[in-house]
Each structure stands twice: as structure tokens, then as C-alpha cells.
């Protein structure tokens, strides 16, 4: 179900449009004829969240009710998505916490006392106590964390990994030992984009590098079209093979949730409205925000944005067997995010905001910005990319937020050493990946500090492989020229300059599509 009015053609009455660029945004005058794709408005939300959760646990898809899967003396493990979802962090209480509370209530009623709760963070950074507490809620945190029963998954803890075998394609399936040896594994998910969930939850979230490397590589990722359509994604095919193998060893009860599009709470909610519907008051708000941001030092802008919590509403919760549950989830995500777009264009324009899955409470360095634009947004399509093959992507981001050495230590080395050598994802992997993945210092920081795994920047770069393969040129408006050049891109100071630069690739009067992210939209390109 797509609603009309989401695709707009710029004419002489169209006001300047909002474009996000890191810790700020600009109002941009697009050339007449530019096609603007707006994310759909929010779907209706469930009226009573706790009731909806109860309903899902009692009436699961292709599974007995959760209550009936529990018995005294059993080993129960609950795993949940980490802080990379949703974006921005949702206002307390987090939906995952509310679900976990109900699962725990049922377990208590059924006399289950061997329960552990694991953050399925794969190779992401460990969460701090405060971040963990925000997700599971104060009560769960206090009952489990002090006894060591609520913890971050550790993909490098050899003694707590279980090799479950190989898929028929020779892929190692190795996941968290506690999860693998449980009588029941309950997975609590948040689905912000269609890419997440399904067999990706357990199969990747609780896996080790040895297992993940089979699908997180340049070759697989360049053949994943689109990531938002798990049936056309090589990465997903691999995760699905692994997931089915896992299912033969451990009973997985999957709980998936979907959210609406209310990503910005007050006073930023104006940013979600369409410019031609702005009231005088909205215009004043935007102007005030822009003035404030213009004079605020970087640190303050960072705080302004990263302290922001969203008003997400729950559009649905489904529980049961992984695959049918995920089918329903994907349907709902598509319903919320899909916009019908007629045909490809020569140029696609995207604003890259301050936040992506991998810089929650941290900085969006140039590699993450590239991944956000060319990994996430570029890949947010069904059928075919918004921009034609050989076309140009124009992105907005300053590319200068700096590398946070606490959360992203290996990124600095990747940027300085690997990208200085080559930016070709296919060459980078064989030459450098293993060294970074096994570097004892990165392993140490991943396990004991709050650092992303050493291999993580490689995944970011592989993820943009499909875009690099498809596009004729990538130009960053307002991007630090040195950083752009290091990544093999160009930079321009204005949209006009960027289009001038693009003209050598797509001619002097290209067709242009502007994807007005965020919130997330999924372009269904016919």
C-alpha cells in the first residue's frame, strides 16, 4: 500500500528542501524537474503495546505458545538486538525491554530459573551498562546484570562459542555456546529496515568472525541486490542457510517488531514534515535551528543531536518460527517504507544525517558516512537502484567528524593504511582483512572496551561495493576534499558545482531524484 503524493516534481513554486548533512542540515534549491521522494507517513500503531506483545506470545505463527515451550529445569536464553537499532534510540521504555519482561514473567510462572540474556551484537561494540539498561529496562538490568546473567555477546571468546557444523555451501556455523546449547532461544528484535531480522538475528547477531566472514565479504555483498529483499540478497541466502542449520540444533522462538516513522521527537519533528506544508511556525523553527547550529561548537551540536530520542510507535509484533514471522515483518516494513518510483534517473541525491547504526553515542567518521549513504541509502530499493547504472550519486556530509578511537580504533588504521593503498573492496579483502580481524590489540579492545571489532571497517567498505560497482561517479557536497579523495570520491562545495562535475558523466541536463531521508524509505523502482 503506497499513498499518493510522496513523489514530487520540483517546479517554480517548490520551496527549498531540507537536506541533512551530519550534525546539521541545509535548505537546498533543487533544479526544476528534480524528482523528490518522501518517506511515507507513519502507519497506525498498535493501541496497547503490552497487550499486543501478550497476544503475539500466546498466538505465535507456526509454533506452540511460548508458555508451552517452557518447562522447569530448562535452559532458557533470551537474545536481543543491540543499540545499533533503532535509530535514533527510542524513548524509554524500549520495546525490547517490554518484551523481555513478559518473556521473563512467563518463565517465572513456568518455574524456569536457568535464564541468561545476551545482547546479540555480533562484531559491534559492547554496550555500556547505561546503554544496556536503556534497552532492557531498569528492572531486568538490576535482576540479571550483577549476577553476570545479562551480558554482551563476545564473538572472540573461544571457550564460549559452539561450532554447529557447515552448511552445504561449506560455510562455518559458529555461534554463542550458551545460545546454542539452550533448550529454547528467544530472540527479541527491532526491525527498522527490511534487511534486519529473520535468520540474520541469531545467525549473525550471535555468531563469530569465522562464521560471519562467509557472507560479509566484497564478493557476496556486491551480489546482494537488494539487501532489503532477502530473496535477492546473497548475504541473506547465506544467513538463511546458516539459520536453517542452527534451527536443527536449537529451538528458536523469534519475536519481531516493526516501528512507524516518528524518528524525530520535539523540537525536531518539523524536520519530518514536507517543506511545502510548513506553517510559518515550522519555518521559524527550522530557521532558528539552523541559526543555533551555525553558531554552536561541534561538541554542542554533537550533544544536541545524539541526545535526541525518538517517539517511535509500534506498528506490529509477531512471534513464532523464524521464517513465517519474518515474512510478516517484511510485509509491514515494506508497507511503512515503500514508495513507488517510476524508472531510474541519471543522478540520485541523498543527505547523510548525523547518525547511523554504528555511531550511536559516537562520531560518524568518513567511512561510516560513506556506508550510510552508499551502503544503506543507495541499497534502499526494490527491483532496481534509483539511479541508473553508470549514473552519479551526490551525497551531503562534511566527512570530517573525526575518528573516535574508543569506539572505532581500527577505522583510523583502515583509513590511513588500507584506503591509502587501494579503495577497491575486492582487493582490500584478500590483502588486509585477516590481519585486521586477528590483530590482538583490536581483539582486546573489542572484548574489554567499547570498540568495534577490528574487521568492522572492512564490512562498511564491502557494503558500498555494490554502489561503487554500479555508479559512474560519487560526489560529496560540502565534503572535506581530502577525506573524499582518500576514499576515491570527489567533493564539491554546492549542488550546482556537483551537477557541473557530474555533467561529464551524465550530460548537462540529467534526470535527478532526491531521496529525502530520514526517516527510512524504500524505493520500489519499476
Amino acid at each position, binding site marked *: 500500500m503506497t499513498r499518493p503524493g510522496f513523489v514530487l516534481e520540483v517546479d517554480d513554486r517548490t520551496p527549498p528542501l531540507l537536506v541533512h548533512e551530519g550534525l546539521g542540515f541545509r535548505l537546498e534549491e533543487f533544479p526544476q524537474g528534480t524528482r523528490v521522494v518522501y518517506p511515507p507517513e507513519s502507519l497506525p500503531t498498535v493501541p496497547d503495546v503490552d497487550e499486543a506483545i501478550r497476544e503475539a506470545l500466546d498466538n505465535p505463527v507456526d509454533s506452540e505458545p511460548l508458555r508451552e515451550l517452557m518447562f522447569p529445569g530448562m535452559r532458557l536464553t533470551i537474545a536481543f538486538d543491540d543499540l545499533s537499532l533503532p535509530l535514533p534510540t527510542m524513548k524509554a521504555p524500549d520495546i525490547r525491554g517490554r518484551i523481555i519482561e513478559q518473556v521473563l514473567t512467563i518463565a517465572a510462572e513456568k518455574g524456569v530459573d536457568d535464564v541468561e540474556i545476551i545482547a546479540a551484537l555480533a562484531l559491534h561494540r559492547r554496550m555500556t551498562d547505561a546503554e544496556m539498561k536503556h534497552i532492557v529496562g531498569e528492572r531486568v538490568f538490576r535482576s540479571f546484570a550483577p549476577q553476570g546473567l545479562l551480558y554482551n555477546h563476545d564473538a572472540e571468546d573461544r571457550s564460549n562459542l559452539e561450532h554447529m557444523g557447515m552448511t552445504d555451501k561449506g560455510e562455518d556455523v559458529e555461534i554463542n555456546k550458551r545460545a546454542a546449547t539452550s533448550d529454547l532461544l528467544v530472540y527479541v528484535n527491532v526491525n527498522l529496515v527490511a534487511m534486519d531480522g529473520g535468520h540474520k538475528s541469531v545467525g549473525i547477531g550471535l555468531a563469530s568472525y569465522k562464521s560471519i566472514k562467509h557472507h560479509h565479504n566484497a564478493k557476496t555483498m556486491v551480489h546482494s541486490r537488494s539487501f532489503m529483499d532477502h530473496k535477492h540478497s546473497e548475504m541473506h541466502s547465506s544467513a538463511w542457510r546458516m539459520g536453517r542449520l542452527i534451527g536443527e540444533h536449537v529451538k528458536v522462538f523469534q519475536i519481531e517488531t516493526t516501528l512507524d516513522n516518528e524518528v524525530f521527537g520535539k523540537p525536531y519533528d518539523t524536520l519530518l514534515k514536507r517543506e511545502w506544508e510548513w506553517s510559518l511556525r515550522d519555518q521559524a523553527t527550522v530557521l532558528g535551528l539552523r541559526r543555533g547550529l551555525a553558531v554552536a561548537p561541534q561538541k554542542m551540536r554533537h550533544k544536541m543531536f545524539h541526545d535526541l530520542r525518538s517517539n517511535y510507535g509500534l506498528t506490529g509484533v509477531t512471534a513464532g518460527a523464524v521464517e513465517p514471522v519474518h515474512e510478516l515483518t517484511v510485509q509491514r516494513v515494506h508497507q511503512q517504507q515503500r514508495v513507488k518510483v517510476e524508472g531510474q534517473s541519471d543522478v540520485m541525491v541523498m543527505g547523510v544525517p548525523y547518525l547511523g547504526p554504528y555511531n550511536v553515542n559516537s562520531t560518524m567518521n568518513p567511512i561510516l558516512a560513506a556506508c550510510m549513504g552508499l551502503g544503506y541509502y543507495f541499497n534502499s530499493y526494490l527491483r532496481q537502484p534509483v539511479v541508473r547504472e553508470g549514473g552519479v550519486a551526490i551525497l551531503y556530509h562534511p566527512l570530517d567528524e573525526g575518528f573516535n578511537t574508543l569506539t572505532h580504533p581500527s577505522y*583510523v*588504521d583502515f583509513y*590511513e*593504511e588500507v584506503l591509502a593503498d587501494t579503495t577497491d573492496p575486492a582487493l582490500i579483502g584478500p590483502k588486509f582483512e585477516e*590481519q585486521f580481524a586477528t*590483530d*590482538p*590489540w583490536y581483539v*582486546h579492545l573489542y572484548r574489554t572496551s567499547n570498540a568495534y571489532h577490528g574487521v568492522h571497517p572492512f564490512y562498511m567498505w564491502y557494503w558500498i561495493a555494490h554502489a561503487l560497482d554500479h555508479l559512474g561517479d560519487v560526489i560529496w557536497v560540502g565534503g572535506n576534499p581530502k577525506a573524499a579523495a582518500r576514499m576515491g570520491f570527489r567533493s564539491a562545495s554546492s549542488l550546482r558545482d556537483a551537477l557541473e562535475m557530474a555533467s561529464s558523466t551524465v550530460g548537462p541536463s540529467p534526470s535527478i531524484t532526491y531521496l529525502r531521508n530520514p526517516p527510512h524509505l524504500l524505493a520500489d523502482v519499476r
Partner: protein
Amino acid sequence: MLALEMYRSVAKTALGKVAGGRMPLLLTGAAAPLRMVTLDPPKVEHDGWARLKVSLSGICGSDLGMLSGKTSLYFQPLVSLPFVPGHEIVGELLDPCGDLDAGTRVVVDPVLTCAARGLEACEACARGETNRCSRITVGDISAGLQTGFCHDTGGGWSQQLSVHRSQLHAVPDGYSDEQALLVEPVACAVHTARRAAVEPGDRVLVSGAGAVGLLATLALRELTDAGEIVVVAKHAHQRELALEFGATEVVAPSETLRRIRRATSAFMLEPEMMASPYLLGGVDVALDAVGSKESLQTCLHATRAGGRVVLSGMPATADLSAAWFRELEVVGTYASSRGSGDFATALDLVGHDGMCRLAKTVAPYPLHRWREALDHAQSAGRLGTVKVAFDPRRTN
């Protein structure tokens, strides 16, 4: 004859106060301890000495250090004021000298040892370790560790000086004066490479890609079985030369520690406050070819326990905690030693392709443009020059 003369020492403390960060101005401004003068050509009336007409004479980092007052007061008794600086010298003999005919083109090994001073060889000289001579302040000539720091002999920054047969090496035909000029600094680099005692496959860090660092890189590559040689360079042209001279990898100063950490799978620790980070693990041998506090600190902090830190060029003060805790060998390397034939090896090495290219970039100045020349030498790295020299034959 025309000469540049260092006529008073500059107390480091006094200078430090006035100078702030503006060394070049002090070097060449009104307060400079250097002046252009007309002198009688120096003549040492003892056996084995001859007059040398200067063709080219280089400006070395140690000269700049001396002139800007950065040099430790330690060296003050080892020189005799006033003196004519210049110890990288190529010239033509005006007199026959032992077995060398007048007119022979020679390069000078500047160290003034027992032989030049008319003394019985001291223990070091007797072993051929001439750069360790303990008699450099006595004998037939005034105090001075080298030609270029001694009142009686004169130095290269003039039209003429006195040299002793023990210091001379004939320049083979086919070498340009500029190539010959590089023989002395290369000989020092050869000595440095020996002192570094690199084992086959050792990982080496060379901090600095000025003349000292580049030549040390060449010597390490040609004379040892070093594995990776990582060179720290600030400027693009230094990067290219370093690679040409045998560097495996060239890194920017700000990247050094991280790159070494990665290459050696070391752990990196960051002390609180302003202290610099350091590695547990690191290279086998690190060579400070800058002589700044930062460079020396990087070397000490990037070397594995039990490794070696080589001081090539006059060192700055640094925190020696790592040397103690990591049991580092801190090794000095001064000039070159005759017993191990460093000059002969250097004469071979200046035939290297990269050296021929480097020789073509030597920037010559007439003596009267000394302010410009010193200014240029001071910012040589930034300006893309490796060696600035005086050519007393030039009038402009």
C-alpha cells in the same frame, strides 16, 4: 680569502628566551653568531698538512644546531672560537699531500684524530675507531672535534682550508662535485647502519626523512639484511626518495605509532594527561634521524622490549622511562670510523642511482648569500631540498 666565521657562542638559555619559535630569523638576523669576513687562508705548518681549495661545502643539521644555539653546552669545550664552519667538503689540493698530487680532487673525513694532531695514536685511534679519539682538544692544532669546528684548520664555508692526509679520500673520476659532496654524510650513514647492528629480517623504524634519515635508509638497505624499513616523512618528495632508497613503507609523523602497532601486532597504551602513547611490542631497531624530542620519544616508544634505539644526529632530551622498563639499548652514532672503511663504502654508495638523482638537487649558494642559504637549509624539508651547500667559486 672570503670566509664565514662563527665568532661567538650563543648561550642556549639566552637564545631560548628571545627566540621562541623563530629560529630562522635568529640564525640569519643581526644577532646571528656568524659573519662574513676576509681572512688569511689558514695554514698548518706540520707534516702531512696541505691547503685545500673548496669546491662545495654542505650545510649539516649539526651546523644549524650550533648556529641557532640549540646544541648542548656539552660541546662547547670541543671547539675553538672563532672558527669557520663546514665539514662536508669536496675540494682540490693546492699542495701535494703525501702520496696525493696537487690538483687531486678529494673529499674530507672531518674528524681530527691523533694522526692529524701529530700525536701517538690513542687507544681508540690505534683500533681504527677514529671517531672515538680522546685527544681532540690537544696537539699541533687548537681544540676541535672536526674540521669545521677548529680555529686552526679553517672549514668548508670559505675559499680555502687546511687538511691532513689522514682525512683525505681521492674522488674517483666520473663523480660530480655534488656526488662527492654527499660522501661525508653517506659515510656517517654507513657508520650508523653498522651501529644499528640489524639482524636479518629485523623491522626497522627510521624517524625522519631529511638528509640523515634518507641516507641512513639507503645504508641500512644496502648494507644490512633488514626486513621492513618504515620511514617517517613529513613531505611528499621525501616520501618518494625514501621509497627509492629502500623504505618498505613511508608514514606521516602522526601515523607512526599506530602503523608500527599494526605491523608488529603490538599493544598501544595511552598514559593520562599530555604524555605520549607507547607500544608494548614494536620494531626491533629504531633510528632517530631528526634529533627532536618528539622523534626521539617516538623511537623509544615504538621499539620492542630488548630492542635498540640509535641516536643518529644530535639528540634532544626525552623521557627515558621506556629505555629502562623495556631494557632498550640506546646507541650513539657519531661521524664515521676509518678502521671499518666507512668512507670507502660511502664512495661506492654515492654511485647508486638514487644518489645520482639526489646529487642533482643539491642547492648551491655563494658565500655572501649565507643568510638565504641558512634559511633554505633550515626549511629544506618543506621546500623539497635535501642538501644545501656553499659554492665559494660562485659570485652569485
